[in-house]
């Protein structure tokens, strides 16, 4: 007991010389001395006080004085961040990215109904896409190519193309957008076309046409002649290049021309059912000839 107290006193640096002598005589003082000596050599992380204080000041400034300080565990944070990203991405795809699209290939037409039962007939080599979820509030679709619309009465119905925008309430109309060619025909009701921020109203039986960026003066057409819906295409003073492009769309052939003026105007039509009859109805009035070689058509001027 006495020894124990002496040891404790010694470690507390309160030992008198006399007591130390007495302590040194005890048999296991050597071990004790070593314990005392080496345990004091255990290294603790040295704090750079200045630096630590500066770091503390930054922390206390960032968290308002009354605010609770929460140490960020970044590993944990990454975990949550990753989970949130996955969650947001999946829900985005599930909830918002439900654009429907319809596409036709060459020589193919497709008839389908929009969510409000408006009818769309998509001509060859065309594409329509729209957001199914928003359809009730926002009847808005994108068109590449040509389509005929029978729109149910309701909110504004908008067809966007790269060239112009067509807006209606409820009618029947045709929108055609091919390379450098934009055409809207109204079969019923009133259609509003926005082209280069200008709005044009098209009553029944009128046609709006933009060729190579030039607006064609308003024309009329025969509303009973729904051309491509009846498997034929009709043209009225249209440059030959657009007519041939339409042939390509309807019949999946590539067309080459030799010594032919592609800007010559053509009026008439061609059927979608027979390539030979179609080509004849174009070439004969223009005094041209054609040759079919596999999937390639060559049109040439036989006068030369």
């Amino acid at each position, binding site marked *: 007991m006495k020894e124990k107290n002496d040891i404790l006193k010694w*470690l*507390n640096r309160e030992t008198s010389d006399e007591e130390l002598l007495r302590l040194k005589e005890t048999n296991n003082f050597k071990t004790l*001395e070593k*314990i005392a000596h080496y345990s004091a*050599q255990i290294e*603790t992380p040295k*704090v750079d*006080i200045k630096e630590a204080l500066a770091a503390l000041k930054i922390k*206390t400034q960032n968290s308002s004085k*009354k605010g609770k300080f929460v140490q960020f565990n970044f590993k944990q944070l990454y975990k949550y961040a990753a989970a949130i990203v996955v969650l947001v991405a999946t829900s985005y795809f599930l909830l918002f990215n439900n654009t429907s699209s319809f596409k036709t290939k060459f020589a193919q037409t497709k008839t389908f109904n929009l969510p409000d039962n408006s009818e769309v007939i998509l001509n060859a080599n065309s594409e329509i896409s729209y957001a199914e979820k928003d359809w009730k509030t926002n009847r808005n679709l994108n068109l590449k190519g040509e389509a005929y619309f029978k729109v149910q009465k309701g909110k504004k119905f908008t067809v966007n193309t790269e060239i112009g925008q067509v807006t209606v309430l409820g009618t029947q109309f045709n929108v055609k957008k091919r390379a450098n060619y934009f055409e809207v025909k109204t079969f019923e009701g009133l259609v509003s076309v926005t082209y280069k921020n200008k709005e044009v109203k098209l009553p029944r039986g009128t046609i709006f046409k933009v060729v190579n960026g030039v607006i064609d003066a308003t024309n009329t057409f025969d509303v009973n002649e729904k051309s491509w819906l009846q498997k034929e295409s009709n043209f009225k003073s249209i440059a030959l290049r657009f007519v041939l492009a339409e042939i390509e769309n309807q019949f999946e052939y590539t067309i080459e021309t030799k010594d032919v003026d592609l800007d010559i105007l053509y009026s008439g039509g061609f059927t979608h059912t027979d390539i030979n009859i179609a080509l004849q109805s174009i070439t004969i009035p223009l005094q041209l000839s054609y040759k079919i070689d596999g999937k390639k058509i060559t049109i040439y001027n036989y006068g030369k």
Partner: protein
Amino acid sequence: MTDKSLCDEMYFNEFYTSHIQSASNFAYFKSGDKSTSLDLAQEAFIKIWENCAKIELSKAKSYLFTVVNNLFLNLVKHDKVVFEYAKSSPYLDVDNQSPDYLLEEEEFKDKLKNAIADLTEGEREVFLMNRIDGKKYREIAEILEISQKAVEKRMSSALKKLRAKIDGI
């Protein structure tokens, strides 16, 4: 004395400067983890700064160590403590350079280190605060808010365990 408030940055800085090292050491004695000890101490000081109006300067020191202790207990993971000796620390007998002696001492240090790691937290914090920080029992008692008798008890039970482990009894 009463007008010395920890909300006054000057007094806070003074308090911080004189205690950050031993607060960090204290966390280290408990956790044996070099990477978190300073963080724990820093966090405790932030708590003091946030509650400066409620803490008397005279009680701040024991408050500080209590907070470090609580923060340590809140850590979910308690790894086994690992201690290391300072490099280039002298052997007890500086003059004795015989290989046998050096080997013996290294072995001893190794045993001691492991024995300290095996002490209970209470024993270890008291023992190391005394050995490393050179704190007297009175001061340790004050910091830990226990009696000096309790500190001495922890000291002797720590010594007893260490000697038993080292002598292999």
